[in-house]
């Protein structure tokens, strides 16, 4: 049972209309939007941690610079995204507290360990690729301030994928040991990658579609990822650890059904590195609280 104002709002966004920060919006829209954006901000921030340790171990000056710049971009993205969420009414300190306490979530891929330099390449090449597919779809988000920052985010992500591919190619044209590092990393990252876009939800049951926050369904995003990147993987002589993976004659990719229970467990904080990384964040947030107080108390 919705009132006329809400009906008009729904019609407007479903017709491609845009919403600004100072516009009236239904409570449900605001709540769903905020939760979505907050999770995105959390993910960029947590995504920094698995990669950060490899900045310190980067094997050449060029790679160190490139990886530092990539991680810097992720931090920058979280700044842009959190600012949008703050303008929707939730203070940053509260969002950081909810992240640490586990009240809010971050994407599955950032709950897993990075074991080798091979992971560094696979993450920049394939995890970022999976993310950019979702992010490109968000360029059409009904909430304009969010859609606008996605432009800068997508532009910067394009460097990351190129960097990732360069790292991978250097190893694939290197020693046998280096090629093994890549294959091993791919084997470990494939299951989380397949879960990344989420379980398929029919359009008419998806509130993200209803409010035009997302313009693309989960399965659509996954298919786009497979279509774009499996050929790139195979052309390097790498194998994907899924015997069922194949492209049907109708262009639809078939694959082993991902473990959706695992996805749920991971994003609710039970991933292999979930608690360790949250604890690492908490340590620094607590340690530097005095700095924020000194600096942000204007």
């Amino acid at each position, binding site marked *: 049972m919705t009132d006329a104002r809400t009906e008009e709002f729904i019609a407007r966004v479903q017709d491609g209309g845009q919403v600004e920060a100072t516009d009236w919006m239904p409570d449900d829209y605001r709540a769903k939007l905020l939760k979505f954006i907050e999770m995105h901000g959390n993910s960029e921030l947590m995504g920094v941690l698995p990669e950060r340790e490899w*900045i310190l171990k980067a094997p050449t000056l060029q790679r160190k610079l490139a990886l*530092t710049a990539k991680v810097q971009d992720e931090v*920058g993205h979280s700044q842009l995204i959190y600012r949008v969420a703050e303008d929707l009414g939730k203070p940053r300190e509260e969002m950081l507290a909810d992240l640490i306490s586990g009240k809010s979530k971050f994407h599955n891929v950032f709950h897993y360990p990075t074991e080798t330099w091979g992971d560094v390449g696979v993450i920049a090449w394939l995890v970022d690729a999976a993310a950019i597919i979702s992010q490109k779809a968000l360029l059409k988000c009904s909430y304009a301030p969010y859609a606008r920052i996605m432009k800068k985010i997508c532009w910067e992500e394009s460097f990351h994928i190129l960097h990732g591919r360069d790292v991978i190619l250097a190893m694939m*044209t290197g020693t046998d040991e280096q090629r093994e590092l890549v294959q091993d990393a791919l084997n470990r990252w494939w299951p989380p990658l397949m879960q990344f876009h989420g379980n398929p939800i029919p359009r008419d049951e998806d509130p993200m579609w209803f409010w035009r926050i997302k313009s693309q369904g989960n399965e659509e995003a996954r298919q786009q990822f497979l279509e774009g990147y499996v050929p790139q993987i195979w052309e390097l002589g790498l194998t994907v650890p899924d015997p069922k993976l194949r492209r049907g004659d109708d262009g639809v990719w078939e694959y082993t059904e991902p473990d959706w229970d695992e996805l749920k467990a991971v994003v609710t904080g039970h991933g292999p590195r979930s608690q360790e990384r949250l604890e690492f964040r908490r340590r620094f947030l607590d340690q530097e609280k005095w700095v924020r107080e000194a600096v942000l108390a204007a």
Partner: protein
Amino acid sequence: MQALSSKTELLLDYADDELIVGWRDSEWTGVAPTLEEDVAFSSIAQNEIGHARALYELAARELGSDPDALAFDRQPGEYRCAPLVQLHLLDWAHTIARRWLYEQADAVRLEALQAGGDGELAQLAAKIDREEVYHRMHAEMWAERLKDEPRFREAVDELWPYALGVLPPDLRPALAARTGRPLETSQGLTDRGENLAALTELWNEMTEVRRSIPGAEW
């Protein structure tokens, strides 16, 4: 280790300083006190690595080497960086104190290089200095904001003897004048020469991947 010309010694002193302080500063990527500061601080770290690379490039000519080999393939005892940059200081007060002191010392060093007789060094120093302008602005901004914060003041006092050690003796008075701090201290000063255990720890981490497959291209 072959005998180095005094120019190459100077280049390696400086390059090693920039590499190690850049490595230390890059540790803050992702965990700085605010997101905005995180982004800005990371740029500083990247600039420093960039400076190190340019300095290594010059040194590499005399040594028949290349920047990556100089940066990664020497033993911890062979690095010529000042102890100030070797210290592991993963708290903000000490990090900013080091930033500020290092920028002060670096300003003196760059001034001397630009006024010096070596055209090549002067030119590179001028280039570095154009980026350092922003590092100095950033350090001053923080020093101003934290000037009444005991943690910061204590950190600066603690690190001052190390800061003096960044410069050769003839340039130390200029540093003392710039910062309004004493040339003589009760703790003496910590000069280049004997590298700290902290540097060996850093080196182990910094070279881990590189050493894992010697000679590989990455």
